[in-house]
């Protein structure tokens, strides 16, 4: 990703953004259980200024912790589009990487990258909180260096992402399956 230089304000903003990351975690699959320990006293995510947020409108990171079926993917895409820029996505566990143990299932998607731009993947069939915190620090360094601009890619080749999404989810994006 061409790292075109950022003016002074963006540099300061990136410093601030790295220091206080608000996280919206989409707890699916077995990854969700890793988050409480990382937030409570043993690993304490809050010392890095990170905390859980209830709405995408206030969140910086979309944290997807497990396999995504066709149905849940649509919810993830809505939530992603409702987040304000700049936003970052972290894929947690091998299920987001390559489908994990469900790679050959008819329902789950194999690569999260095709549908929404992922800044950071954390490998492991449910990595431990240490790996999670390591990933967060890695993300902070990327933000400070200005490399974590997945959301810019999403904007630039938006239609490529849209085709992938429609190809796998079908035109149903617009019509809700409950009403048909």
């Amino acid at each position: 990703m061409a790292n075109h230089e950022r003016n002074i304000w963006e540099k300061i903003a990136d410093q601030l953004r790295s220091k206080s990351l608000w996280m919206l975690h989409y707890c699916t699959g077995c990854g969700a259980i890793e988050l409480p320990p990382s937030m409570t006293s043993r690993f304490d995510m809050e010392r890095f200024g990170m905390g859980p947020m209830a709405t995408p409108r206030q969140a910086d990171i979309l944290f997807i912790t497990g396999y995504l079926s066709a149905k849940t993917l649509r919810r993830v895409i809505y939530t992603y589009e409702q987040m304000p820029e700049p936003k970052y996505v972290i894929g947690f566990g091998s299920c987001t990487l390559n489908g994990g143990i469900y790679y050959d299932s008819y329902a789950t998607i194999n690569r999260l990258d095709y549908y929404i731009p992922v800044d950071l993947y954390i490998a492991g069939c449910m990595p431990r909180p240490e790996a999670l915190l390591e990933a967060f620090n890695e993300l902070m360094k990327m933000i400070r260096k200005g490399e974590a601009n997945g959301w810019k890619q999403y904007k630039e080749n938006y239609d490529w992402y849209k085709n992938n999404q429609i190809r796998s989810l079908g035109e149903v994006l617009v019509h809700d399956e409950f009403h048909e």
Partner: protein
Amino acid sequence: MMTIIRVAAVLLTGFFVGLTLEGVSRKIIARIQRRYGPPWYQNFIDVFKALSKNGITHGWIFDFGILMALGGVIATLAFVPLGDLVAFPGLDNLFIIVYLFAVGALGMAMGMVGSGNPNSSIGVARALTQMLGYEIPYMISVSAVMYYYKTASVSELMLSQQDSWTLLKMPLGGIVAFISLLGMLGKKPFDTPIAPAEIASGPMVELSAKYMGLLMLMHTFSIFVEIGLFVDIFLGISNYWTFLIKFTVIWILATLISSVLPRFRIEQVVKFYWKVPLGLAFLQALFVLLGWVF
């Protein structure tokens, strides 16, 4: 010219002291939960990070609501005397402060409902009901104090505590005021309007970047107004610095209480406020009428 400087001083203290104290409270809660917790300046970073992002808006009423909220609270803060630093010497009437604060509340409510999200409307309805709950005992206990000292201006109320603190003179009134203070601050036992688990942080559902920042500022200023009033009326004469110390003490006390208590349901909030604090407040008013003041 002097008033402008004084108003600026009041606002800046509100901004800086408020945000640092919020960071301190997050550290205290972390310490209680046996973890390190964020640095004390974390809230400054959060505010500026939120302001730097580009979020979304739901139309002009959404923006006007936030502006009216922040403007109202700033105006209220200007009238609150911080110890001996009084922006408008003769004009800081208690009713003005309480009802000017309502402008902020109404502005925020209007903006939030303007966003059209059902969660925010439910949150606003709960906020107004809770206000109905804590406002009445607070006003009675405070009017008992005003009746005793025969003046409604806050700075005079503070100065007339020559011999001993009003808190010691009217303990019941002090307790009731503190309980309704918790309600005003929206701290844990009474944070049903902003319940993150139930209604996705209530009114603030649709507040994206900049608006979230402005609202956090408003929240800081409103904390400053509420506790400032409490300190002025109940905790004796204080110049600027002793005022800040008392302020931090009360703030830490409130954080300690709120970090260990679960959340009330909205009916329970109103029922609680109209049973225990209202009863105590009436008792206190009776004592003041009969002249039994320590």
